[in-house]
Every structure is written in structure tokens, then in C-alpha cells.
């Protein structure tokens, strides 16, 4: 018998397609994550909490999530401007700039880390002048922040760009004919319909930043309690053959990330309803 839940569809191949999707999702995502939780469950909730409250672990988690959040916030502004420039203006080199946006995406993260460190180190092109002003970037949390902004930017730009391209310029003109200033037009007419796209970009940039490892370890200096990120702490624990500790930190990160994405999705659903996307 056919699956009675389905409405008949003219598109063939629903059953095999769904089967393949579920299989991949299972093998690649759900089973490994379940295994992680299974392993951590040996510790019990109290065991997890006690590990989470260890000063070094707590500091690493705070650093990772805090900086990722701040970096994603900065990318909202930065990515918004870049997306605006790319969709709204025609200028020489636009395509080059457009391609460059994807570089943090495509670059091996270690390459990004080495490059950023070279530039922001006290003897680097940008790090030098900043150092003279008394601002240290590389080997401090600020350095991690720079790396996280760098790797998050393409997520923001690519989320906002297509929606921005769809905005009818006439709505801005309509706003002007109704007497609104440019600033008001931007805040009341242009930006509100973009909110869901910005949220998506924010969520993606945040998720990516929380998990980022390669570029950060080079620029951060990895000083425990100061500039040690949570993913690095997992590696450190593993190198100490403390598998339970590594698993615990990993599970805590998983739970926090999941909670964050869930909250963002709920906010997004609300925003969509409010902006009439239904």
C-alpha cells in the first residue's frame, strides 16, 4: 500500500528521495551526535555541570560564546553594508569584491589564521600601528574576535544579498514622495523586510564562529583563562587522554549551540509573521 499520509504529487521519486535524505542525515548528523550524548551520559547531569563549572572550562565557554556573539553582531552591520554595496551600486571591481567575499569561506582556516596573525601581530602591517597606539590584537581575545568576524562575514553577506536584491527600489521612492527623510526610509522601509535575512545570517555566522578552530588557534595565543576557546580545550583534553572531559565540553557546547539556534528560529518565526511573510 502507498503511504496514505501523502497527497498525490505529480513529482516522481518522493519515497526514495526522502529515504536518501533521512539516511544521510542519520549517518552524518544524528548518529554521531547521539553517540556523543551517549558517551557523556556516563557522567550524569551532575558530572556535566561540575565539569562546566570548572574555572578553565567556564572561561573557555564564556570566551567562545561571548566573542562569537559579538562577532556575529558586528557582522550584521558590516555584512549589511557589504551586501548593500554589492547589490545597489555598479562600480569597477564589483565582481572582484563579490568574489573576495567568499574567500573566508573557501580558504583553509589555517591559512586564514596564519595570514591574520601575520598582519595583526605587533610587527605586522596593521598590528604595528595599533601596537604603537597601545592596542594589542594578535594573541589576545581581540585577535580571536577579528578572526571570528573574518570567517563570519560571508554568511551574513550571502544571506542578506538575495533578499536585498529583491527589494523594489520603488518602495524607497514611494517613501520619499510621502515626505520621509533618507534615514527614516532606511530604518522604516528598507531594513524591516530584511530582518529575517539578517537573523539567518546572524545565526549562521554565530554557529560558524562557535565551532571555529583553525583560524583562531593561530591568532589567539591560547592562554588558558584568557584566550583559550572551547574547541581548543576539547583538543587539549584529548591530548591529555581525558576523553570524558573532552566529551563533556563537547556535549555542553552542543547543548548551548542547539539552544541558541532554537531561540533564533523562534525569533525568526515571530519576525516573519510580524512582517507579513506569513
Amino acid at each position: 500500500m502507498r503511504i496514505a499520509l501523502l497527497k498525490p504529487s505529480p513529482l516522481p521519486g518522493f519515497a526514495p528521495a526522502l529515504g536518501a535524505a533521512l539516511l544521510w542525515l542519520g549517518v552524518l548528523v544524528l548518529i554521531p551526535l547521539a553517540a556523543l550524548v551517549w558517551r557523556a551520559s556516563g557522567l550524569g547531569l551532575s558530572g556535566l555541570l561540575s565539569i562546566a563549572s570548572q574555572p578553565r572550562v567556564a572561561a573557555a565557554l564564556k570566551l567562545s560564546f561571548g566573542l562569537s556573539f559579538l562577532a556575529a553582531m558586528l557582522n550584521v552591520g558590516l555584512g549589511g553594508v557589504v551586501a548593500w554595496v554589492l547589490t545597489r551600486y555598479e562600480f569597477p571591481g564589483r565582481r572582484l569584491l563579490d568574489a573576495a567575499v567568499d574567500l573566508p569561506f573557501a580558504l583553509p582556516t589555517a591559512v586564514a589564521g596564519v595570514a591574520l596573525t601575520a598582519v595583526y601581530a605587533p610587527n605586522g602591517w596593521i598590528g604595528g600601528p595599533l601596537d604603537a597606539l597601545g592596542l594589542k590584537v594578535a594573541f589576545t581575545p581581540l585577535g580571536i574576535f577579528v578572526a571570528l568576524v573574518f570567517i563570519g562575514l560571508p554568511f551574513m553577506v550571502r544571506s542578506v544579498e538575495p533578499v536585498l536584491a529583491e527589494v523594489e527600489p520603488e518602495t524607497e521612492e514611494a517613501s520619499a514622495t510621502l515626505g520621509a527623510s533618507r534615514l527614516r526610509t532606511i530604518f522604516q522601509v528598507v531594513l524591516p523586510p530584511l530582518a529575517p535575512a539578517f537573523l539567518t545570517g546572524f545565526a549562521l555566522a554565530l554557529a560558524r564562529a562557535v565551532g571555529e578552530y583553525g583560524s583562531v588557534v593561530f591568532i589567539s595565543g591560547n592562554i588558558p583563562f584568557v584566550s583559550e576557546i572551547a574547541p581548543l580545550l576539547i583538543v587539549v583534553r584529548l591530548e591529555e587522554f581525558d576523553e570524558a572531559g573532552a566529551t563533556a565540553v563537547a556535549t555542553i557546547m552542543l547543548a548551548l549551540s542547539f539552544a541558541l539556534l532554537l531561540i533564533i528560529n523562534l525569533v525568526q518565526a515571530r519576525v516573519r509573521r510580524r512582517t507579513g511573510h506569513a
Partner: protein
Amino acid sequence: MDIKIRGLQKTFGASPALHGVDLDVGSGELIGLLGPSGSGKTTLLRAIAGLETPNAGQIHFGGQDASRQSVQERRVGFVFQNYALFRHMSVAENIAYGLRVRPRATRPAARQITHRVNELLELVQLTGFDARFPGQLSGGQRQRVALARALAVEPRVLLLDEPFGALDARVRKDLRHWLRDLHKRTGHTTIFVTHDQDEALEMSDRVAILNRGALEQIGAPDEIYDSPATPFVFQFIGDSNRLPVDLANGRARLGAAILGHVAPGLEGAAELFFRPENAVLEAVGGLLSGEVTHVRRQGARRRADVRLDQTGAMIEVDLPHGAATQVTQRIGLRLERVGLFAQGRRVSLLDEACRAA
């Protein structure tokens, strides 16, 4: 508020969009800007609104020079072709927008804004739709919301760009009457752009015909239809026949037939225009004659294709009611309300062989 436009010019890159347009619109008048696509009609409308900056020329609103005023200062109501409603705002918020964005000193109180919004919703027959979003409305309803939004700011001039362009034929017809009615009630000076001649002729007090960035003719619908000023207007409005004519020795000749006299000194090729309904059937043996090659019904009338004996040219002729005209029949023709043009200028025909418009 009357509008006076003088010598308006606009170029986009190398291509001129408007060259030297002069236009006077009386207070409370409803003007249709009609032209083929690319004729500059939308550019002219946008220039009046201040959405385009002309390269030269002036625009006056009620004696006040508006040329240097910004879009915001001009206080025009503009209805865009795709309506350009704010999708994230409800119908009421869309309509209230123009009042809410006013500086505090001139902004009406919230209660007054609500009152005004309800008034406008009633005017555009959308009472009860205030909480809907544009995405939940039909095309005709969106159009009316856009109109209400434009009227909310009490504009000095109302400008509409292809107001019915995106609607289907039925809705279009209803809205035409409705807008005409609304104009009578509110009395705003209104300019609308259209490429649909029926729309322009039916709705406008006066029609302005644009072609390649220049004004060809402006006049009442009857004037435009009955006495087109240029060959372009003759061909663009309604159906017409065009016959090549020779001017020589003070005479206009179609093949061997002499159509009439023209002022001496006019020589060379000219064009004779007339409408199918202005060709009158006669007994064969008059000035013009031909053979019917095809007869077809078009709604209320019957129309025949006729091959003229004089030059072999094909023309279209409307047949009178009940005429038993058949294919291959030979008929005689007399032409009325003709337009004779030499080098694009109207030339008068001096005697009665065919009567000029």
C-alpha cells in the same frame, strides 16, 4: 494646483529621453500622458515628482518654481506601476505612513491619523481591510491602497504611473470608472501615464501624446481622435489608412486621380491619412474605386479590405449597416476627414474632392 512645464530636457547617458517638453495643466484637470513604450512618458511623470533630475527646463506648481525642490518638499502623490506598498506594514500603516513621518510640529495626533486613515479606507472602498497586509490583497485592492496612501498627505498634484497596467481587463474597466469618479469628488490635479489609448481617451479631460521624448499633440479626446495633428498621432490613435500621394504643380495626386489642390510651391512626396469609418461607399465611376478582397466582422462593424484601382494600394474600409458588399465586388469611394502631411507637417487640401478634417 496648476502645473507649468517649460523646456524640460532629460538624457540618460547618450540617449535623450525628453527633449524640450512644454506642458500646461490646469488646476483640477485630469491629464493622460499617452505614448508607446520608450516615448518618455514615465520619465516626464517622474521628473514632475522630482524622482528624476532634468538636465534643463522648469517645473512650476501653482506659480511656484518646484524645479529645485526635493521629492519630499514637492508634496506630490505618486502611485507606482507596481504599487510599491510596504509589505511589512498593514494597510492602515501604509496609508498612515506619510502622516507619521512628518516632523513633530506638523504631525497630526494619533487619533486624527486613525480618523484620516478610516476616511481614506472608506473613500477607496476598503473599509475593514485596515489590518490586512499587502500580500493578502488582490491587485485591484493593492492599487486602491496605493492611491489612499498617496492621497493621505493631501498632495498638491496626483501622479499615476500606468495605474491599471498590472490588472486584468475586467478590474481595469471597473477601476477606470471608479478613478474618474474619485477625481470628480476630490478634484486633485491629476496626471496619469498609460500606453492604452482607450484608457487615455475615456478617462482624460485632455490627452497629451508623447513620441520619442517630444509632445506630438495635446487636446481633448475628441480633438485628438478627430483631428490628429501629426502623422504619428493619426497612426497611433485609432485605425487609419496611409496612402502615399504626389504633390506637383499645386495638385495632390493619388496615381492618376487628382485629390485636390494644395498651396503652390509644395512639391514631392506626401502622405494621406484617413480612418476606415471615414471612407464612404459610392457608385463606381467617382474619384476613387477598388475591388473588395476580404470582408470580416469586428464586433459591431463590418470591415472590408479594398485594393484601390488608382495605385494598387490596400486600404481598410468600414461598411455601412446592411450593405450587401461581397468579396470581388467593385465599389466607388469618397474620403472624408482626411489628413494630408508633407514632411510631417499638415497641408491643407483646398477643394472638395476629398474633405479634410
